[in-house]
């Protein structure tokens, strides 16, 4: 749920509840005041009746005014208790309201009213007085107040929604900008996260924190890379010395079988060490995009050359090679593309069984290299991570990492699939 939506929801619910409570209180208060006023009117009317009776010694004539009815009924003395009641008032429609009479087939309508029951003694007779006064005006007033309240609620909601839409979205814009910068952030990239221009303290702080963090991460990464590069460089010389000493050693001749086996092992260990070291250096170089020999070339020619290069090794393992190559022009570093092809093809050879097969297809969209091998899919994403190796692999564990990095450098995609007993590597252009 978006912050804005969450905030809106809480806000709306609060406002509605508060407005409803206010409305109820308002209604109660006004109706209390108005009822009080009606009661005062009723008492005044009662007093008038009393005064009249005192003066004239008979009951006043009952007449009906607009909103007031007075009736007298004889009652047994002392049976009437004075009280205010809520009651109904039957209002007859006047001459000018014939259409209503016609419509409702009635002479009038009931309106809610306030009444006062009282008593008066005229001579020796005891009367119950009922004064009823219509509350229709009061109710109109309350209805009016209620409508205004509802109106205010609706208006407030409208204002709130519009404000949120327009202003909050704009207010949060810096946040979304920072987010999109973070999403684009690439630790290996030299691009810095830009300082955003806004005057909200929170966003400024967030922006600064993000910039700091990115710079620190980049620095650490850079340090690490420099370290890798330096370490690999420093390793080159001792490896060169070991290599040359081995080359010199084997010139001394007269080795026993055991000695020559040991020397062979040494040779292969040193050459593995060397390849590993070279791979690390290469990886740093590719990640830093330090290889700048991009040129236009026909990938088909390179693949052809690579196939010739590996010919003896295909034959040695009795591998059946089928290939179908279309012309494909690419703009890339020849040096790196050769490494990519060499890595993928030598993998296809190395992880193949004797007498297996390799299929190479090149067309305008992709380069596909398939090979037979262990009849089980490889862990899809893991194989591209550094130093991931299948057990017993003699490789450096960096080949596919390097391959993927090379592809990324030129905007290609390297993917792995296992389909129909073929391990398939696809370079999508």
């Amino acid at each position: 749920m978006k912050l804005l939506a969450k905030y809106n929801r809480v806000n709306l619910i609060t406002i509605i509840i508060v407005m409803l409570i206010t409305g109820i209180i308002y209604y109660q208060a006004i109706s209390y005041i108005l009822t009080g006023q009606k009661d005062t009117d009723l008492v005044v009317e009662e007093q008038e009746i009393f005064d009249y009776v005192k003066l004239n010694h008979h009951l006043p004539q009952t007449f009906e005014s607009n909103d007031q009815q007075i009736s007298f009924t004889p009652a047994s003395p002392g049976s009437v208790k004075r009280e205010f009641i809520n009651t109904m008032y039957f209002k007859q429609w006047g001459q000018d309201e014939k259409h209503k009479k016609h419509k409702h087939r009635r002479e009038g309508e009931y309106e809610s009213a306030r009444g006062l029951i009282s008593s008066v003694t005229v001579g020796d007779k005891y009367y119950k007085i009922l004064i009823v006064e219509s509350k229709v005006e009061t109710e109109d007033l309350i209805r009016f107040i209620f409508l205004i309240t509802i109106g205010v609620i609706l208006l407030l909601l409208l204002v709130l929604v519009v404000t949120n839409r327009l202003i909050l979205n704009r207010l949060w814009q810096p946040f979304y900008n920072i987010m999109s910068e973070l999403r684009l952030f690439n630790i290996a990239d030299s691009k810095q996260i830009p300082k955003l221009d806004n005057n909200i303290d929170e966003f400024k702080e967030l922006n600064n924190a993000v910039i700091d963090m990115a710079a620190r991460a980049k620095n650490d990464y850079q340090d690490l890379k420099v370290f890798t590069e330096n370490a690999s460089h420093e390793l080159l010389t001792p490896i060169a010395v070991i290599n040359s000493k081995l080359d010199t050693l084997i010139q001394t001749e007269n080795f026993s079988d055991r000695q020559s086996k040991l020397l062979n092992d040494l040779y292969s260990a040193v050459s593995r060490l060397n390849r590993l070291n070279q791979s690390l250096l290469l990886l740093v170089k590719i990640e830093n995009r330090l290889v700048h020999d991009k040129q236009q070339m026909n990938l088909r020619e390179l693949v052809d050359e690579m196939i010739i290069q590996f010919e003896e090794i295909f034959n040695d393992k009795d591998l059946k090679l089928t290939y179908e190559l279309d012309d494909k022009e690419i703009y890339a570093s020849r040096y790196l593309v050769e490494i990519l092809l060499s890595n993928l093809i030598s993998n296809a050879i190395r992880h193949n069984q004797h007498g297996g097969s390799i299929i190479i297809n090149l067309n305008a969209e992709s380069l596909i290299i398939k090979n037979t091998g262990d009849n089980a899919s490889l862990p899809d994403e893991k194989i591209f991570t550094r130093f991931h190796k299948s057990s017993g692999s003699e490789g450096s564990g960096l080949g596919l990492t390097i391959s993927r990095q090379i592809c990324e450098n030129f905007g290609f995609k390297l993917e792995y699939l296992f389909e129909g007993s073929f391990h398939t590597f696809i370079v999508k252009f």
Partner: protein
Amino acid sequence: MKILVIEDEEGLRESIEEYFTEAGNICETASSYQSALSKVSLYRYDCILLDITLPGGNGIDILKSLKENSHPDGVLIISAKNSLDDRLEGLNIGADDYLVKPFHLSELKARVSAIIRRKSYNGSNLLVFNEITIDLLAKDVKVGTTSVKLTRKEYALLLYFIANKGKVVSKNAIAEHLWGDGIDMANNFDFIYSHIKNIRKKLMEAGCNDYIQAAYGMGYKFTAQ
């Protein structure tokens, strides 16, 4: 031939010196920028093996001074820096070749031989080893007067052997020479064996002596004896 090894790493310098010193060869060494500079200004060499990072200076400057004085010495840069830019810079200034550390001594020898061949055989493109004659331009191999048809790799291997004649060349070195650094088929170098078998067979069918000897399962030796 006369060779100067400019390399500050003692172990490496000694190995190279030992490998190159043989009958008819003079191999001198320099371990610092200063001593190297004074040697190249006083003497001429068929080939100079030049390390780039030297105590006291940059090997590239030595190369520049050679070229400024129009000295004809062949120059092979041996560097730990495997960057295309460095390689291009070296070759642009006038180095004849560029070899990245670490390398096999046999590879170094083959490169140096190629440089010296290019420098000294001006015009003539024939490389002769006993009854074997190789036309380097036409890439044509003859034993006596019989032509031998070799594949591209077999031809390269023969040249490699002749450049390292009398030396044991390891299988690793052969594999890297023919298939490049990228080759990491690990301990399985059987395919080299079949290569050697083929080349030997072709040469002997043309009436050539058998010069290629297996050396203790580690490599091969091309020798006249």
